[in-house]
């Protein structure tokens, strides 16, 4: 109806309906409060407008009223808080086995790479119904990955990974905006998310030329950079065996324990001496400035793909959930 004058954003992801429901609740609540307060003011202003010979009646106040109109709003606020917190918690917790897309933001474009290896610029193709986790970083300033139709937004920072996830529900083409001011062409740092039926998506996936999965290119990079010299697949290496470490707690030399997530692996490559694994020496060279963001993503994807079991076929599929069909071509 309102082709040139839409008043509501498209809704194309799981969870977007929950955000809308809460929003409508808040609009209704605010509308009710506005009408209530404005009606009271209007009634008082007409009823008690200044008249000759009629004095104002001095009323000191009422503690009972004050407590009432403090406690009731506070109660309502807590309901809003909880409802919003539940949605946020869901938004911030990517489901296990989501397929991964690495995002590198720079002034003023989005570079994306699927775990299957496909690269895209300012465009992201995804199938309906699949959980997609975005692992994002920036090459320069802070950007923000915003897809209004999915109701998701996450700042993308230099020097670390931030993540977001979604499950698209409706085929279509949707806006991708950078929503954190990032310089001259901030408003030009836009793209689109193309949501496709799974069959079309498979066709798209096999259409583009690719050199193999992200993890596979990470593996060859891992060998090129000589990482294999120390990070061996047994316990004899001068560096820790990386098989199966992802997502597991790691005991550090200084007594702390950290979980080996994407940011930990990233840091261990760029500035290895920041967190030394217990029992090892700080002998690894610093890779800060030697590997670019996209190479780093491949390395991280490779390390994640290493399973502790016989790891002959190190590949992207190892992070896919049991039961999903392999996306390897």
């Amino acid at each position: 109806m309102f082709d040139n004058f839409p008043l509501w954003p498209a809704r194309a992801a799981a969870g977007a309906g929950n955000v809308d429901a809460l929003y409508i609740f808040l609009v209704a609540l605010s509308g009710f409060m506005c009408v209530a307060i404005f009606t009271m003011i209007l009634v008082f202003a007409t009823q008690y407008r200044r008249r000759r010979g009629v004095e104002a009646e001095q009323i000191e106040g009422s503690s009972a009223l004050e407590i009432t109109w403090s406690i009731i709003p506070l109660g309502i606020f807590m309901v809003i808080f909880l409802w919003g917190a539940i949605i946020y918690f869901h938004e911030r917790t990517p489901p296990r086995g989501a397929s991964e897309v690495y995002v590198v933001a720079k002034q003023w474009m989005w570079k994306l790479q699927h775990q299957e290896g496909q690269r895209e610029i300012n465009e992201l193709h995804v199938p309906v119904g699949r959980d997609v986790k975005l692992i994002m970083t920036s090459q320069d300033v802070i950007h923000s990955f915003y897809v209004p139709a999915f109701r998701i937004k996450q700042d993308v920072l230099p020097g670390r990974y931030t993540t977001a996830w979604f499950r698209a529900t409706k085929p279509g083409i949707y806006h991708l905006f950078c929503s954190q001011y990032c310089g001259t062409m901030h408003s030009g740092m836009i793209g689109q998310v193309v949501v496709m039926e799974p069959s079309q998506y498979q066709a798209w996936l096999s259409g583009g030329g690719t050199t193999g999965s992200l993890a596979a290119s990470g593996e060859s990079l891992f060998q090129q950079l000589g990482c294999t010299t120390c990070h061996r697949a047994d316990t004899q290496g001068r560096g820790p065996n990386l098989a199966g470490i992802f997502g597991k707690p790691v005991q550090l030399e200084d007594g702390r324990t950290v979980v080996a997530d994407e940011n930990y692996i990233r840091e261990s490559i760029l500035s290895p001496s920041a967190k030394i694994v217990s029992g090892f020496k700080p002998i690894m060279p610093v890779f800060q400035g030697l590997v670019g963001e996209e190479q780093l993503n491949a390395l991280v994807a490779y390390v994640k793909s290493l399973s502790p079991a016989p790891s002959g076929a190190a590949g992207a599929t190892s992070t896919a959930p049991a039961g999903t069909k392999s996306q390897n071509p």
Partner: protein
Amino acid sequence: MATAAVTAEREHYLNKEYGIRSWLLTTDHKRIALLYLISITFFFFVGGFFALLIRLELLTPAGDLVQADTYNKLFTMHGQVMIFFFLIPSIPAVLGNFLVPLMIGAKDLAFPRINLLSWYLYIIAGAIYVHCILTGGVDTGWTFYTPFSTAFSNTKVIEAGIAIFIAGFSSILTGLNFVVTIHRMRAPGMTWSRLPLFIWAHYATSIIQLLGTPVLAITLLLVVFERAFNLGIFDPTRGGDPLLFQHLFWFYSHPAVYIMILPAMAVESEIVACFTRKRIFGYNFVAMSSIAIAVFGFLVWAHHMFVAGISLYSALIFSILSYLVAVPSAIKVFNWTATMYRGSISFTTPMLYAFGFIGLFTMGGLTGLFLACLGIDVHVHDTYFVIAHFHYIMVGGAVMGYLGGMHFWWPKISGRMYPEGWGRLAALLVFVGFNLTFFPQFILGYMGMPRRYWQYPPEFQVLNVLSTAGSTILAVGYVLPMIYFLWSMRYGKIAEDNPWGAAGLEWKTSSPPPTFNFEEEPEVTWEAYNYEEIAAPAEVPVER
């Protein structure tokens, strides 16, 4: 009239001395208030001019009126000028400066020379900022986010940072002066529980200025040093953290919202009491809610960072704390509304602004509930929803309060009445123009239009056109008062000492007041807002 002739000859703060020296070297808080009035009005129109250019650019989806870089400078300098050079000093440095000593029965502020110093710091800061504008400007967004501001922007970040750093000290000195004055200079009998609510709110404001502004100063200094000497504090490739900047910046800049809105609440209480002819309903609760806002306001800064990459659990904490700070604001709105019950209400220009304030502040406050809500904020953060929300608070709230206050105390400040009919017309234009400008932006925001966009997808155009149309009405509403205030200084009806029949010590001295405010030190034996003891003027002066 006989009184008029007498008033014309009487010595008061305006005619005691003439000449530029008598103004630039004055230590009279009332004259310094006027110096501030002139300076902030200048910056208000500079910032307003930037705003109009922004709205004109957004009339069409394509970036066509100005270059992208120019647009980025326009919204940056609009924000910085309006916040640091207009809103923060507006009510405190003009009306607060003029009224705090008068309201508590003091001869002047505790430190008159420091008061003058604060104005000079403001002027130095303003001059540096104007130089920055004229020689290229700055494009970081008013928020100076790193690492863009420290390592990527090619504009005059250091100059802008230094200007705002200095302006901050002007604000600190004003706050310091108010705190000491309110503690030490109250007239005999003016106990804490007899203080006008204007004073309570300014006291709360001053505490924020004193405790918050130094953090802004440190933060800006770090940005300046990082840019000048490449320190690496916010640079992740050298172990720095860009998010640290956001924490430091919002630790001041969220409470700064209360520096802007608390004084408007201060004005609101005085106007509502006067034109309902009643003591404010729930005096203690309104007074304490100001203090509560000042305290809680320091604990909510990270609600600006829900999508910035902070931990899930800290986001939960900051969301719940943000709801706590909403309670005292709600208390105030309910109490002003309740004050009108069984009052004797007249619809003068200040009261129209007061009505407008309640309406717009209520909407601004309610939409704040959306933003404090984690599930909603993720979608609307950094969109026009946020723009609309904070303009409802800062323009709908703070500027309405400022204009209402200027009309209410204009007779005291200038000794003249402003033209009431024009005043009401301007108040109406401001209200209508404001809503037309900013209401469509709530819808734009939920639809997903990001802020700081020079060009935008065509489906957002209709709402942007409405917004731009509104801004022109708003502009007329703002220019009108400036014209008739100036006109009234010469042609306005001579004001009586207490034309509104208002309670409050400032109305017990002459209009305009003598240099030392009172002919003899007042002794207070009554409670605040003793409207039952003050005869209402037979008719509120109306000039048509």
